[in-house]
């Protein structure tokens, strides 16, 4: 079950790389968030506490509902285009994604963390971070940058589940709150940039350099 969830997370990452619509992308990120929430419950079946379940639900709610809602709202209000506008084509993105996947598995073998709930945790965590990073770097729109940060954060969350055995969810909570603020700020800035520059192409931010 844990493995299946991890593989689904892995596949959502690949799907994000070839998605050409921003709305679809947001939905996939939301799905990934819900999968992560499920994972937090399923992944530690043995020592699950009520608090743990609550945190997991909170994670799922934030990642799967609040963030997407915020982003959707930002998209609607700033009236941006619905294409992803990639620098790197979708096919090439997929190829790069597969290469990153290979690297992640290689890193996973090189980094055997003690007390792993499963062999896939580390590779999938790395892969989520790579995929998020790649989305940030290779797509023009500011919204996708926010999405990329979210995917990267999901990777960090996975690490949190793996690496910090005692209270991963507390650590995670901190990160999550940071992110909440980040998304808020992003939403507001996007709105303002839109008003000032009349476009949300991250390229155009260069206009603001002085």
């Amino acid at each position, binding site marked *: 079950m844990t493995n299946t969830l991890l593989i689904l997370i892995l596949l959502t990452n690949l799907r994000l790389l070839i998605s050409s619509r921003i709305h679809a992308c947001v939905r996939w990120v939301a799905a990934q968030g819900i999968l992560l929430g499920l994972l937090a419950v399923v992944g530690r079946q043995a020592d699950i506490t009520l608090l743990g379940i609550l945190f997991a639900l909170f994670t799922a709610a934030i990642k799967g509902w609040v963030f997407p809602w915020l982003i959707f709202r930002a998209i609607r209000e700033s009236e941006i285009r619905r294409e992803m506008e990639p620098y790197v*084509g979708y*096919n*090439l993105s997929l190829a790069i994604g597969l290469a990153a996947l*290979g690297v992640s598995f290689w890193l996973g*073998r090189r980094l055997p963390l003690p007390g792993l709930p499963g062999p896939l945790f580390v590779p999938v965590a790395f892969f989520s971070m790579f995929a998020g990073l790649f989305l940030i770097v290779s797509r023009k729109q500011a919204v996708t940058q926010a999405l990329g940060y979210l995917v990267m954060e999901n990777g960090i969350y996975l690490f949190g589940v793996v690496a910090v055995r005692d209270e991963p969810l507390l650590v995670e909570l901190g990160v999550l709150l940071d992110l909440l603020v980040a998304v808020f700020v992003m939403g507001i800035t996007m709105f303002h940039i839109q008003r000032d520059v009349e476009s949300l192409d991250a390229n155009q931010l260069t206009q603001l350099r002085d």
Partner: protein
Amino acid sequence: MMGSLWALALLLIPGALALLLPRLRWIGAAGAVAGAAVGLVACARLLGGAAAESLRVHWSIPGGLLYMELDALGAFFLLPVWIVTALAAVYGVEYLGRHPRAPLAAALFNLLAASMVVVVLSRNALLFLAAWEIMALSSFGLVMLEDEKDSVRAAGWTYLAASQLGTAALLLMFILLGSAAGSLDFDRFSAAGRGGWILALGLIGFGTKAGFIPLHTWLPEAHPAAPSHVSAVMSGVMIKMGIYGLVRLLGLLGPIPAAAGWWFTAIGISSGLLGVIYALAQHDLKRLLAYHSVENIGIIMLGLGVGLLGVRYGLPAMAAAGFAGGLFHVLNHALFKSLLFLGAGSVLHATGTRDLDRLGGLVKTMPVTAAAFLAGALAICGLPPFNGFASEFLVYLGAFHGSTASAQGPVWGGLAVLVALSAIGGLALACFAKAFTVVFLGHAREARPQPARDPGPAMKAPMLLLASLCLAIGLGAPRLFPAFQYILAGRTDAAAQAAALGDARAALGTATGVMAVFVALALLAALWRIRRLAGRPVSQSVTWDCGYAAPAATMQYTGSSMAQPLTEFLDPVLRAERHIEPPAGYFPASASFVSHTPDFFQRFLYRPLTALGARLLAPLRRVQHGNVHLYVLYIALTLLALLAWSLGAR
């Protein structure tokens, strides 16, 4: 050994006579054929298991020794040399016809053939390098045969420069190999812990000749520029001398560097994939074939890489199948690639153009050339029942042994090779489906004053012979396996290798059986069709034109349009230049679309580098001013300096 020497004499003497007696147009080719007959007998004996023969004669050059040896590996590499040069020489007599430089071409051609034989035979570094240089210079002369054309001159100089850089790397490599041993004889070489450096130099030096990416840029320039029978020899045989050098070097190194298998595999993947991708974007028939040589060299390297990985990870089945497949592909590629170049030569001879998009419909007026080219096209795509399949199958088999292994290294190496080979196979099929069909099928895209005809017997016979060899080897491949036992001797553990080769042979044997069934089924289906149509109305009409009243030949799909979806898809790699003038207005008077795909490495690596070199070296031009007196002074000063240095060093 004497057999090979006689064969060399039979090659060289008529070659010289061809220059002296220009009226005897056949004499050079006759020598090539006679030499091949004698040389092939010697090779056959070695491949049948006879012991290696050697010859040592003292030579007046310090460090040099006239030391030659013919072993099974050498004999295997000599097979394509003899077969292809003999057939190409016969073809060349008619192809060049009464060209004023035909005698010179014949002489250079025989010299080229002889130098390749000596490269394979020599066991002394100086002898090897001398033969290597003669090979480069004679082929340079042949490329420049029509040096009144600007494009030919540019191609020739590019070739010469690349060739010399490669030789420089080889010189360094031999110095490293020889300095530890204190001798330049192959049998006394030792790598002495510098195997990695030596192999790297070898990969650069031999790789320039073989045409690895990114050392390949001379290849798509020089091969189309040369006369077609010379292209056949250069592309079919001469670039294999680079592979021969590498294989020989691997035998001389002693312990092979652990990473060698990965290097070879990486080179194989990049050359194979990029070669076929660039080939897809070409619309010059001979240039397309030249890029396919890069691709096939990649396949050979994949085979050798799989072999080396098998050795490294202790998988004899993987090693044997990989080495056997890579080496077998050397022979097979020599046959089908020279066949394709000869076919392209016939098309060029008959129509005067190599541009795919101006040809078409030749199968009706040139049936023999079309059939031969079709055989070559099927073979180069690795399609059964032709010979390309047999060798690619062995490489696949080796990679497959790796991918089903339990250790991680061979699994990923094997998978990478499997994926690369299947991608290369699919793209090669796309490319030859384009090249063959656009040239030979459909309508002629340009009106010709007189229809293009098949050439005469001297050009037809070599093509037909090569085509039947391709088919015969494809169906008879399992019979060649005993020879692999001798060729691969010493590469891996003998008993394990024999068992592995036995397994591979059994698999290929069954595959051949299935191919025979395929041929039988095809005949059966043909028979059914003929019987069905007998006595029924069969009529002729126009191609379905969708109701359009004035279809024209130029509306057919061209080579460029056929490859367009793929080239568009691969544009991140290809970076084609397109010049589009779209139709404008309701009744557009003119519109045009031109695309060409310059070589990436030429454009972004070599051109900036050579420009930089030219700028840096410009001050040196002052030294060269044409004043002979000063030149003599330079020589004297150099000699004096050398004398002082050598006395001082003592």
